């Protein structure tokens, strides 16, 4: 009996042991940013770590969201001021009448050699192209998103009919297992998973949808809403300025060990693992013509019924 009382007491103490709330400097304006804890947001973390935002009077509070699922709903609901997200999600949100604004470039794929993403198959399966995948399946992390869109485009570009391929949702961390156990016939994999899988052997990369289909594609952007932009124009401008300094530092330190330590810090991935993955450069500006190409592909895949007015969606600060 006494032991059970003791355990209740311990449980109570444990519940009360709530982390001490962080104190914040009163003179810094707080900006809440939704991020995906992957290599793509390294320039943002570089800017935070190097104090670029602090110099401008901003305090950046990052909230990670796996796959960015909470990014746009949280942005529209007012939980975040800014969200890092992919181009397809941003255009879909705009299509649904949400007042989203692209304020800064995030990630693009310019150098095919540094594109670690790709369509992987089992080396002994005899699949080489989209044509071979007709009647078979491809694993994508989510349907109707950027990965799905470029996987479809790759199937089409390599002679297959995307309508005759089944796209199965498999989370990125489980993609390699799904492929090896033949739950899917091909898998769209991203780093670091692609690099680890490739190293183990037995799998081959048959295509790089981003760099094969649209060299220079703007994959990720920083997005806000028209409401935030109207209410805090100065803070947003400072955010973009600070982020650009972060991008410059990042691009100048691509091979620096300090960059890997930085990425390891917010992703929890080992530096040894990160070393397997090529580090691509980050863009300073959003390329509207690239976003337009993506939009055309979305219309082609029936994600969008008609073109959107990109001048309204992409704020001039991003250019």
């Amino acid at each position, binding site marked *: *009996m006494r032991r059970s009382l003791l355990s209740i007491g311990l449980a109570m103490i444990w519940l009360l042991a709530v982390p001490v709330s962080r104190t914040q400097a009163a003179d810094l304006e707080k900006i809440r940013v939704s991020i995906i804890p*992957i290599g793509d947001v390294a320039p943002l973390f570089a800017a935070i770590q190097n104090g670029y935002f602090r110099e401008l009077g901003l305090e950046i509070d990052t*909230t990670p969201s796996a796959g960015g*699922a909470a990014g746009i709903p949280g942005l529209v609901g007012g*939980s975040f001021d800014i969200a890092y997200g992919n181009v397809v999600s941003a255009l879909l949100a705009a299509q649904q009448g949400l007042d989203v604004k692209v304020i800064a470039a995030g990630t693009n794929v310019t150098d095919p050699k540094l594109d670690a993403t790709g369509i992987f198959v089992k080396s002994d399966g005899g699949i080489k192209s989209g044509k071979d995948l007709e009647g078979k399946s491809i694993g994508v992390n989510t349907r109707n998103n950027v990965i799905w869109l470029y996987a479809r485009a790759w199937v089409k570009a390599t002679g297959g009919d995307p309508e005759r391929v089944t796209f199965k949702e498999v989370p990125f*961390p489980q993609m*390699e297992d799904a492929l090896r156990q033949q739950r899917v016939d091909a898998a769209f994999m991203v780093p670091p998973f692609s690099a680890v899988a490739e190293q183990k052997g037995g799998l081959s990369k048959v295509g790089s949808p981003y760099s094969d289909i649209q060299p220079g594609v703007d994959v990720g952007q920083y997005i806000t809403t028209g409401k935030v932009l109207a209410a805090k124009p100065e803070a947003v401008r400072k955010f973009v300025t600070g982020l650009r300094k972060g991008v410059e530092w990042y691009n100048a330190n691509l091979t620096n060990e300090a960059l890997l330590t930085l990425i390891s810090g917010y992703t*929890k991935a*080992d530096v040894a693992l990160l070393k397997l993955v090529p580090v691509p450069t980050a863009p300073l500006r959003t390329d509207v013509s690239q976003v337009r190409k993506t939009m055309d592909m979305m219309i082609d895949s029936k994600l969008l019924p008609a073109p959107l007015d990109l001048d309204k969606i992409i704020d001039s600060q991003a250019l």
Partner: protein
Amino acid sequence: MSAVDRLNVSDRERSEPRSSREWLGGRASGVLLIVALLSLWELSSRLGWVVSAYWPPVSQILAAAFAQLMGGEILLSLAATMRRAAIGYAAASAAGIVLGIVLARSRLLRCGLLPLIEIVRPMPTPAIIPPLILFLGVDDALKIFIVALASFFPIFTTTYAGVAAVDDTLIQTARTFRTSWARTLYAVVLPAVVPAIAAGLRTATGLCIVVAVLSEMIAGSSGIGYYLIETQYAMRPDLMYAAVLYLALTGYALNRVFLAIEMRAIPWMGKS
């Protein structure tokens, strides 16, 4: 009163053999099964029966669990999750018990509220998270609300059913003695319903942790749910499974605490 006493006696009789030698013997074989399964896991990973980056040997997971404990970070994550679970659970308990009793006793409220409750009940919690983000944001308000919502139903349902099933003889007897409505509720209905409420509360203890973890997987930067996603994406399955282990231990410990309270509290309630 004698009926209430009989109810308690039968309840005590039911719980007594659990703590006897017979039960200990059962526990030993249960432990053996767990050990056998874990050994199989260890072998399947060591001998390469299962080749996957997400199938580390158990010994590696235990080492990770030890390192986590030394680092202290896991306790902060667990505390964050338990805090959300506890607040949501407390709110759900209060609402579930009160509404369960009131609705079972009042026809008017039953007609007004039951259809709404019955419509919301079958909705799977993960499905309503995205729209809720719009109203509640992604912070504690959302997570605690989801925990409370999910925990509410088992507590409400068992309380409601418990009150409805109270032996009518008891109530008629109370009425014969011209007992007031409030006293009938306190001295007759409540003691008879407590076992049902306790069953609902116990179901909800497991559920509140599950839902708290789930809500943390959607958004946020603290708690076990976030930690699980983070370590999965960082390709650290040893840390991931170690966190699951701590979660399982916590759930087990809570259940034990609950049983201990149940054994003490329910006979006492009946005697008042």
